[in-house]
């Protein structure tokens, strides 16, 4: 590509044609402040509506200021990012934005992690002229099971709209009204829970302010632990250990499994278990189901639903229930690891420790917002008592650890409790895109072929970060075609192929978030740096490598669970405790 030469703040820069001023400046270490701009390079999402105008810079020969995020450079361009004209404009614009923004930073969930707050600090804004008589937006706050929307804090950056529509193709959020009253919301400003929202939380993951945040369960957690009559059990999802460290100054991609366990123990949980255990259980059930469907298919049963879709991602499940209800019997009926864990914990384990179901509180620690919603689904409750009482995010856990005055770096590595803390490398793989299907392949391969994988346990062809990946695995002469998608927009493409009968796959793994759970809506905010997601993925792979056992069906505690309690995979008890069904949640127009 042709190179162009330009000058930014007296520095010479050479960049390819088509580069924006913002990127060119970055190349020479000039950090132009931005707000609405978002570039999630590794998943191909760029949001540059040119809306906030915070990145305005002066371009010689141009009448007005140019938005650095959207203006492409040209040869001989002279850019100035720090003239008084620019500084005044930038500050005035941020004052405008703040003049319509609540000043409750003290109690705002985003405080300390808010891009708008950072900007106000950086620009040294001390007062908002005319605030006393400035009209401010007033919207009601919307509490859904997973996400809280405080539209008063919406600054119209449109990042959530981008994620919800372009990346996820969910279409729950869209800009409405115009002018001063414009904001982004579900249709008719209805509550999210009535919208087609999947609770994937990607809107929360990218929101620069406190307009979109998670439902906070940390108070419930404190109450539960404080109650001497309850036994509080923690389960930690695989992706949490690969990201929690970031909140404590570790490099992205640092594994903090042992320190996390130690912190949880000190917080007062009675048992610290691992969702990875339940992931192994999921693999055994799901792998069995896949083989069952496969063998029926190979025997000529044309009714059998193939490809089989994974079902461990609740946002994905809700997506199919909303958008493809006619395909609701395609995903595996296996519950997600979180729910398998809850159901086993409140039966098998509760019996072991002689506790009544209602005296056991199961808390999941998840990278995910949809898990909060999933735990509240009616089918996962027994007499109104949920299998998983509530779910907290990686971020909430980090807050709690800090609140308790612990520093992760001071923690010794500790191990999970048994039995439900035992897990394999396959289980931990659930944290990343491709991981579930790789784990399933390890098990299904051995079950199907009767051969041991031994050294060839890693299926490189299933790994990576591309949006949609395809691989064929040779099951001793039977070619199994596997598809993987992360991001619901990518998943939609695979679903449409299935609908049209064009799908070439036998099994498809889908995760709603970029990179899988490591990029979940409950993770430490990546603040537009998607390389963090890749580092987390590598951490997951390392964790797998470090595990002595790397195949789910070889998890000794899982074997014991079947022997002592469940019987056979997909057997009656397993079916009752570990499987579920899906519903048609789509909006239907009905005749009155």
């Amino acid at each position, binding site marked *: 590509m042709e190179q162009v030469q330009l000058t930014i703040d007296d520095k010479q820069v050479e960049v390819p044609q088509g580069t924006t001023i913002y990127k060119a400046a970055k190349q020479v270490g000039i950090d132009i402040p931005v707000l609405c701009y978002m570039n999630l390079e590794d998943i191909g999402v760029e949001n540059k509506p040119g809306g906030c105008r915070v990145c305005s810079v002066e371009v010689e020969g141009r009448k007005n200021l140019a938005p650095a995020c959207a203006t492409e450079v040209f040869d001989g361009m002279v850019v100035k990012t720090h003239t008084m004209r620019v500084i005044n404009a930038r500050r005035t614009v941020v004052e405008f934005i703040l003049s319509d923004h609540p000043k409750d930073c003290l109690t705002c969930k985003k405080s300390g992690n808010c891009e708008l707050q950072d900007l106000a600090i950086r620009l040294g804004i001390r007062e908002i002229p005319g605030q006393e008589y400035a009209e401010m937006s007033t919207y009601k706050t919307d509490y859904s099971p997973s996400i809280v929307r405080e539209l008063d804090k919406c600054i119209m950056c449109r990042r959530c709209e981008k994620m919800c529509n372009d990346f996820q193709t969910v279409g*729950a959020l869209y800009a409405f009204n115009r002018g001063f009253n414009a904001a982004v919301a579900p249709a*008719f400003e209805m509550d999210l829970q*009535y919208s087609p929202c999947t609770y994937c939380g990607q809107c929360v993951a990218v929101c620069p302010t406190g307009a979109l945040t998670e439902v906070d369960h940390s108070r419930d957690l404190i109450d539960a632990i404080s109650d001497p009559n309850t036994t509080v059990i923690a389960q930690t999802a695989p992706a949490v250990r690969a990201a929690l460290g970031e909140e404590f100054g570790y490099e992205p991609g640092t594994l903090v499994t042992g320190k996390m366990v130690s912190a949880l123990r000190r917080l007062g949980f009675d048992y610290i278990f691992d969702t990875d255990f339940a992931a192994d259980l999921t693999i055994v059930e799901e792998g069995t189901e896949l083989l069952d469907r496969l063998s029926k298919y190979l025997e000529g049963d044309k009714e059998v639903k193939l490809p089989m879709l994974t079902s461990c991602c609740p946002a994905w499940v809700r997506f199919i229930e909303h958008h493809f209800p006619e395909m609701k019997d395609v995903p595996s009926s296996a519950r997600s690891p979180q729910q398998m864990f809850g159901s086993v914990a409140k039966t098998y384990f509760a019996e072991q420790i002689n506790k009544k179901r209602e005296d056991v509180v199961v808390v999941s620690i998840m990278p995910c917002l949809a898990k909060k919603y999933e735990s509240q689904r009616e089918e996962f409750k027994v007499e109104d008592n949920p299998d998983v009482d509530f779910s907290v995010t990686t971020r909430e856990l980090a807050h709690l650890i800090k609140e308790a005055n612990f520093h992760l770096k001071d923690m010794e590595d500790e191990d999970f409790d048994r039995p439900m803390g035992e897990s394999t490398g396959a289980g931990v793989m659930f944290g990343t895109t491709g991981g579930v299907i790789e784990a399933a392949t390890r098990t299904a391969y051995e079950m199907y072929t009767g051969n041991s994988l031994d050294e060839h346990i890693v299926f490189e062809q299933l790994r990576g970060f591309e949006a949609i990946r395809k691989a064929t695995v040779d099951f001793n002469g039977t070619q199994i075609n596997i598809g993987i998608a992360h991001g619901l927009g990518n998943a939609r493409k695979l679903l449409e192929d299935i609908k049209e009968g064009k799908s070439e796959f036998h099994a498809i793994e889908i995760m709603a978030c970029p990179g899988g759970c490591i990029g979940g809506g409950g993770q430490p905010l990546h603040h537009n740096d998607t390389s963090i997601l890749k580092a987390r993925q590598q951490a997951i792979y390392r964790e797998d490598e470090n595990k002595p056992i790397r195949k789910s069906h070889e998890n000794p505690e899982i074997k014991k669970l079947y022997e002592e309690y469940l019987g056979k995979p997909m057997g009656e008890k397993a079916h009752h405790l570990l499987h579920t069904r899906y519903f048609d949640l789509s*909006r239907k*127009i009905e005749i009155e």
Partner: protein
Amino acid sequence: MSRIKVKLKEQDLNKIQDICKAHGNEPGELINVLQQTQEHFGYLPAEVQEAVANELGLSVAKVYGVVTFYSFFTMIPQGEYPISICTGTACYVRGADNVLQEFKRQLGIEVGETTGDGKFSLNCLRCVGACGLAPVVLVGDKTYGRVAPDGVNDILSEYKDNKE
């Protein structure tokens, strides 16, 4: 977690489907579809928007986003006699605001609202191009020119007396 149900009368749904079909169920025709739908129903209630979204394969959020963007679309049923006051520059300079205030006072409603009895609704519009007649008021299709605040009562009573 029961499914969201949107209820519509059969003939209304059929009408919406006809309109959408006439536009090839093209998402790009959304605005034309909404125009015609509003022409038929008089306004665009949520159920109608749901149905349009469904037919055109769009998210309801987008349809709502479009409806709320354009001032021509309304989600509030208009009064039997929709009153529009031109607040274009020419009318403004010739005192449209006083006329508007008088309508608001007499009807007891704000712009964009409909009176409790469903008789009148009040709206502003920008320039009907009858600047020579400024200030201009429209009641339905009928135009009143050179309206002064003390003429408001006369206009309203023309319609109030129309009772059955």
